[in-house]
């Protein structure tokens, strides 16, 4: 698909800002998206990711800053003049044109004479060759989605923008299309910039994920790095789940920073401690924690971080068991344990010891509290449950 002569170039955003009245949708964003990468902009709705994408597409004028591809500044170019194509959310296929003409649209506008072979090759790539003469309304959601990808890719854009392209598909189809899109990206080698609110989608597809919040990028990197080493409370909560315990810096030992919280000291590798103040929030992912019955407390390996608690909920999910453990100070911690041993699970009410390796611990800035990035629906549901429980206790 890609011309040998054509070199794909990096996409640069410099100090990109977009204000709608007083609302800052995108706040001084500087970012380089390497040529040929699959880049995901991940964030909750309203974080500025779609606005960023629309500015790159030329559908929204930036308030400030520049956008360039390689050395070419495209900030002031109109949408139709940019070497960029978009796969729109809900596809925006032309309802009055058949699939063939939808896919040929970009080529025809650029005055390409013989579009037939190219369009047919493109339709074959997305496995829709037999649908060429159908109208978009006669296709299923997944097929429409592939037409939208074909219609954009056929123009060999320097950058392909995908605006929540899988949002309208059901779960199973979405998984399938994630793999499909990744395959197409590898095959054509074009830079893909993918906007999504689905963290799993971003992690499975992208080489690089940028987590956005309030118009800024919170953290950028390889999905595994971001997951294993979140640098902010928002990222720790938005990408997967985290247990966060608020504490204070209490000296250091070797390569570790010691943090004291609720009478317990935790070791955090100094290169994983991102707090610049004396307040440090200790964090650990649920699957990194091991649960031991308190009678086995002496089995905790030396040097591991540990804390005591009481099991308040056990849910068996097949692959793993999910525990809720209440710490002595009332905070609930979440633990995922692989079901490698049959039987031998802790039960509700058991006194347990939680422990995990210091290398899995991270230290964050406490300033913004520990709820940033948690799905608001989840917070709401937890509050409702707590209300119900306390009402029950009173009655």
């Amino acid at each position, binding site marked *: 698909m890609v011309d040998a002569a054509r070199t794909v170039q990096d996409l640069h955003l410099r100090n990109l800002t977009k204000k709608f009245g007083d609302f800052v949708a995108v706040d001084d964003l500087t970012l380089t998206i390497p040529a040929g990468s699959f880049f995901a902009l991940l964030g909750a709705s309203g974080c500025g990711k779609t606005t960023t994408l629309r500015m790159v597409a030329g559908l929204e004028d930036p308030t400030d800053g520049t956008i360039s591809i390689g050395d070419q500044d495209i900030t002031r170019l109109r949408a139709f003049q940019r070497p960029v*194509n978009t796969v*729109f959310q809900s596809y*925006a296929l*032309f309802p*009055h044109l058949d699939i063939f003409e939808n896919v040929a*649209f*970009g080529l025809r506008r650029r005055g390409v004479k013989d579009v037939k072979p190219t369009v047919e090759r493109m339709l074959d790539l997305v496995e829709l060759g037999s649908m060429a003469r159908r109208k978009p309304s006669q296709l299923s959601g997944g097929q429409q989605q592939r037409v939208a990808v074909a219609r954009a890719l056929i123009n060999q854009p320097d950058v392909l923008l995908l605006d929540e392209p899988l949002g309208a598909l059901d779960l199973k189809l979405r998984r399938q299309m994630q793999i499909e899109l990744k395959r197409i990206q590898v095959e054509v080698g074009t830079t893909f910039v993918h906007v999504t609110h689905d963290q799993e989608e971003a992690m499975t597809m992208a080489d690089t994920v940028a987590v956005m919040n309030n118009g800024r990028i919170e953290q950028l990197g390889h999905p595994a790095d971001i997951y294993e080493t979140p640098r902010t409370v928002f990222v720790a909560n938005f990408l997967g789940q985290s247990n966060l315990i608020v504490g204070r810096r209490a000296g250091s030992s070797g390569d570790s920073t010691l943090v004291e919280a609720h009478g317990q000291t935790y070791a955090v590798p100094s290169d994983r401690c991102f707090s610049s103040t004396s307040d440090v929030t200790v964090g650990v992912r649920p699957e990194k924690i091991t649960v031991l019955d308190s009678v086995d407390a002496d089995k905790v390996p030396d040097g591991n971080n540990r804390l005591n608690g009481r099991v308040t909920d056990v849910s068996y999910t097949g692959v793993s068991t999910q525990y809720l453990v209440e710490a002595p100070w009332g905070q609930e911690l979440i633990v995922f344990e692989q079901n490698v041993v049959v039987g031998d699970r802790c039960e509700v009410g058991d006194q347990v010891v939680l422990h995990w390796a210091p290398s899995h611990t991270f230290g964050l800035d406490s300033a913004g509290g520990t709820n940033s990035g948690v799905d608001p629906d989840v917070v709401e549901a937890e509050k409702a449950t707590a209300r119900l429980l306390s009402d029950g206790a009173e009655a």
Partner: protein
Amino acid sequence: MVAVVPTPRAAAAPVAQRSSRTGYLLLFPGIAWLGIFFAIPFVTLFMTSLQQPVPGKSGSYMFGLQFSNYVTAMSEYWPLFVRSFIYAGIATLLALAIAYPLAYFIAFRAGNWRSLMLVLVIAPSFASFLLRTYAWKTILSDEGIITTTLNSLHLLPDDRILNTGIAVIAGLTYNFLPFMILPLYAALEKIDPRLIEAAGDLYASPQKAFRKVTWPLSLPGVVAGTLLTFIPAAGDYINAALLGSTGDRMIGNAIQINFIQFRDYPTASALSFVLMAAILALVFTYIRRAGTEDLV
């Protein structure tokens, strides 16, 4: 010996029968209305158009099969047919040219003003058709600001607008404009603005995006609007009577005069019939060419 098994069709029949009876019942008021107020007058009109005069009694007609009524009516009035279709055609094109940008603006740019603008489009209809046309008499009068301004610029061939074809076309355009705006608005409003963005994203300049996306998607509105304007405009007689001179009469005027003044009912009926047939023929060719049969 023969086991009687009720077939599924037999079991389903009563349900199907009942639902089709409901359908006919629902159709009844409409059909009755059309029968009494359209079919019967239609037949009466056709029979009137073939009547012959009662010998020795002017103004009285009796049953006949005078197909020659059509020939005499047409030989006398064909220029008025031509003029009617030309005036109505020009008025329709003008209305389209005025209505399209307005409807486009209301549909895509008006924001919170959308409802208000739509009300303003319809508001003139609260005053009677006749009154509005009289108002145009004043607007276009020889001493009016429009005529004097255009005259001082030497832009008027006859030094006046009132009592010319221009005034009749202006009146027709004005009076039927809402019938153009509303269907256009309805069609444009349904277009997803993201389609226009998508066209831009796919290298279509704004002009190209309009030609390749917006215009074809608004065609149902264009067809509906032009029909709703052209058909009544072609048969109209008030605009020509109030705003035109005797040289600008349209076919509606001929029908009116023959019915009311000359009491020549056969000729008036024959003209009505020809007008109906001509409009139907035009509309069918038009819709066939526009390729939107589902609109009829």
